[in-house]
């Protein structure tokens, strides 16, 4: 069980800010593949990973980061703060 969060246009494309998923994925990339296989809106949101950033337990991470012990994964576009 892992909380998956979406922000900005990723949230809009997926249609929700947060969901809890049951997953056997061992890396972020595997989780992405599982999500893409679900529905068209996920496939669309994750079609270009170079346009996305990921955080595992609220720390920026890579798509090959391990998910072992992770409670929260977030997907979002590059940040535009400041």
């Amino acid at each position, binding site marked *: 069980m892992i909380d998956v969060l979406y922000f*900005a246009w990723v949230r809009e494309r997926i249609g929700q800010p947060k969901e809890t998923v049951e997953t056997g994925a061992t890396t972020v990339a595997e989780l992405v593949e599982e999500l893409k296989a679900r529905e068209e809106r996920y496939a669309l949101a994750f079609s270009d990973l170079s346009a996305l950033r990921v955080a595992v337990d609220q720390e920026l991470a890579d798509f090959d980061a391990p998910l072992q012990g992770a409670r929260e994964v*977030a997907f979002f576009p*590059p*940040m*535009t*703060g400041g």
Partner: protein
Amino acid sequence: MGVRVQQEPFDFAAEAEAFAAGRTDMGAIVTFTGVVRDTSGTLDHMLIEHYPGMTESAIGGMVEEARRRWSLGDCLVIHRYGRLAPGERIMMVATAAPHRADAFAAAEFLMDYLKSRAPFWKKELTASGAEWVAAKDEDEEALKRW
């Protein structure tokens, strides 16, 4: 030292004054304020989304890093989220240091990291629609100097 992430407006003058007040050990105080721009005259408002929890810890990490790199007496970061009209202040950074080079470097460092590494996303709403602001290559480039 402080990090505040808030929806409500902040009083730049009062914050800058409180930050600068009563110091006899710090010779240099630098502030940066970001303002909602309406360059084309069509912006109705801006919506800023953020990642509660991660935002505070990410900014806290940047402040810690700045304090490791430079001789700083104090640091303040305030960043708003939610709805902002043109001319409203989005955020401010203030740094105090014994010497000006440290105060300037730390403020620029914090700004560069806030731009590209703090989890905020801006959306612009104009008469013709809504659009997420795209990250700029130059902002990513700017991180390389640190």
